[in-house]
């Protein structure tokens, strides 16, 4: 008997592995011969609602993974810069992003920031936009600035041939994404409850496909997956439950995620797709709300605690992760950071301090999207799972 969930994941895998973005090109072609437009965006977070409201397809670009050979990309980046930008340049120069009519660079880190300028020079004919998300988190300061910045961006999209982003349209888009947010969280909840039914590499593929598919289609896909996966009857193994954190931008290769699972870990929460789950709660927008302001407010008040966002005075960093560990009944944390990723790596000592305070076991390593050897990581994750397993039983 074939498992509909697996078949669905196969479809997602095909979409994700299609580095040429043919599905995007297909979406753009209308039956009446006209063309719709698609806009790419880089990690970590960009409010897709605005792009959606302009009638464009938002497409997340996170790098080519281990399937892409880097030749020209390396010509633009020194060895001590993470792998993501070179892979994106490689895709750009290799024509793999031709389906995208523009690109949005959020203010994630200096690498992506500078990439926005490189893009302008390398692809002068393409629209490129730098989105400065606020680091001053006061609504009156950062909030106003950000809402205004989003409006500017919406105007730009209009100029690019998009629909006018009226308050109504934007409200509509926010609602569509609210639905999507809800279902996304349901899938994650199912994995949390029954990790044997939702292997992380499947969930990962499912979510990654959401960077490319239209949001409505993706919501449907997730509903289907949810239905069929929840009916699975896999046996739960005696594996420890862990959270993976730190991998929010450059993505680990699939082999790495599988290696972690094979080394005996149930991943019950992760931040691979932090950008897609950045706004943690539905906005539940009303007709009275000014939608740009609502997006800004949600950003300031309900976004995930990512390393790329200033952590305001108050609760020490890492406490949110500790809470997450408790909520997910996780037994340990695996900190995975892209090599040379300052945001992720500089956060780590603060996070481990918080974990140590709470006596939560953790282990950490670095990866690149094209890491090909998993031996060390397997040893490490295996030992981690051994130590949780053997010692929780032995003691």
């Amino acid at each position: 008997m074939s498992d509909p969930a697996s078949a669905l994941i196969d479809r997602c895998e095909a979409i994700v592995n299609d580095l040429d973005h043919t599905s995007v090109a297909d979406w753009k072609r209308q039956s009446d011969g006209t063309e719709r437009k698609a806009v790419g965006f880089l990690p970590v977070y960009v409010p897709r609602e605005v792009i959606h409201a302009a009638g464009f397809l938002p497409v997340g670009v996170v790098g080519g993974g281990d399937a892409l050979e880097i030749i020209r990309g390396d010509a633009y980046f020194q060895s001590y810069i993470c792998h993501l930008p070179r892979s994106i340049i490689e895709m750009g120069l290799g024509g793999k992003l031709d389906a995208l009519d523009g690109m949005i660079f959020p203010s994630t880190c200096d690498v992506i920031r500078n990439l926005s300028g490189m893009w302008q020079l390398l692809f002068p004919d393409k629209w490129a936009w730098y989105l400065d998300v606020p680091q001053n988190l006061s609504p009156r300061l950062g909030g106003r600035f950000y809402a205004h910045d989003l409006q500017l961006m919406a105007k730009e999209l209009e100029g690019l041939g998009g629909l006018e982003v009226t308050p109504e349209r934007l409200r509509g888009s926010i609602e569509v994404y609210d639905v999507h947010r809800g279902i996304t969280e349901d899938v994650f909840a199912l994995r949390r409850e029954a990790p044997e039914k939702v292997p992380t590499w499947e969930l990962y593929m499912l979510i990654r496909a959401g960077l490319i598919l239209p949001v409505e289609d993706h919501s449907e896909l997730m509903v289907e997956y949810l239905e069929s996966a929840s009916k699975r009857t896999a046996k739960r193994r005696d594996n420890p439950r862990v959270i993976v954190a730190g991998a929010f931008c450059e993505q680990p290769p699939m082999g790495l995620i599988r290696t972690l699972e094979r080394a005996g870990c149930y991943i019950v929460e992760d931040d691979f797709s932090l950008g897609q789950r950045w706004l943690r709660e539905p906005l539940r927008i009303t007709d009275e709300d000014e939608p740009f302001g609502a997006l800004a407010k949600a950003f300031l008040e309900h976004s995930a605690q990512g390393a790329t966002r200033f952590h305001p005075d108050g609760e020490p960093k890492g406490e949110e992760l500790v809470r997450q560990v408790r909520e997910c009944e996780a037994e340990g944390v695996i900190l995975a950071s892209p090599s040379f990723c300052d945001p992720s790596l500089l956060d780590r000592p603060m996070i481990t301090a918080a974990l140590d305070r709470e006596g939560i076991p953790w282990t950490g390593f670095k990866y690149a999207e094209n890491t090909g050897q998993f031996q060390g990581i397997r040893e490490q994750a295996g030992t981690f799972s051994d130590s949780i397993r053997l010692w929780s039983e032995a003691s």
Partner: protein
Amino acid sequence: MTIAAGIDVGSGAIKVSIYETGPDGAETRHALVAERIRRRDPTVVTRESWELALKHAGMVAGDVAYVATTGDGENVPWATGHFYGMTTHARGALHLDPTARAVLDVGSLHARAMKMDPRSKVLKYRMTSQCASGTGQFVENIARYLGVPAEDVGARSLQATEPEMVSSICAVLAETDVINMVSRGIDTNDILKGIHMSMSLRFAKLLRSVGADGVVLITGGQSRDVGLLATLREALAKKAKNLQVEVRNHEQGIYAGAIGAALWGAWRHDYLARKEAS
């Protein structure tokens, strides 16, 4: 009475141990075998070593209740279960030296430090990343280049008078360093000690970063190298004065992973049997 075997499939050598554990916690050794792989097919060497170990123990495969693999041995077809390297090295180290509270495992392509509690629970560990100049293979290559038999490396390092450190982090470039030293007429003993010193610096860093305390046992292929032992002691005395560590080695350090695997295998066998019974 439980008879269990540990097979440690490494990148430089295959190690096999056969142990018997008693209800009183007695741990009796029946066999220890180590065989360098040296460009042969590891699966063949593994099988041969396994058979040799059975022969030494005077047993047949059926006598062994649990065959535990470690290292790269996940795919050994006749294994019962697998444990990961650090788990088994810690366990093995504790068996070899019950006072050990930290382990430094120096294998052919890796080095790692673990801090453990009195029951060999790994509390913290660190491995050398990517670059490989601090490993057994490197010493072996250099020794070959210098024409020094592997077993003499330690003794010769001890005789050094004016050691010169290699600076490169990369094993290949470090080799060039060594070549330069030879061409500058630096004494072989001094070069060897220099290598030990730079390795020791890294190891001291590893040990410090796991917060090693008390007795540290060196395991793995380099554990018999007295030169390394000496420089590591010096490095720790200099670079980590505040750590109260005492580095030791053991004749059978290279078997630590295999021993640990066997002992964990026996434990697991008994645990599963108890679980079955209840």
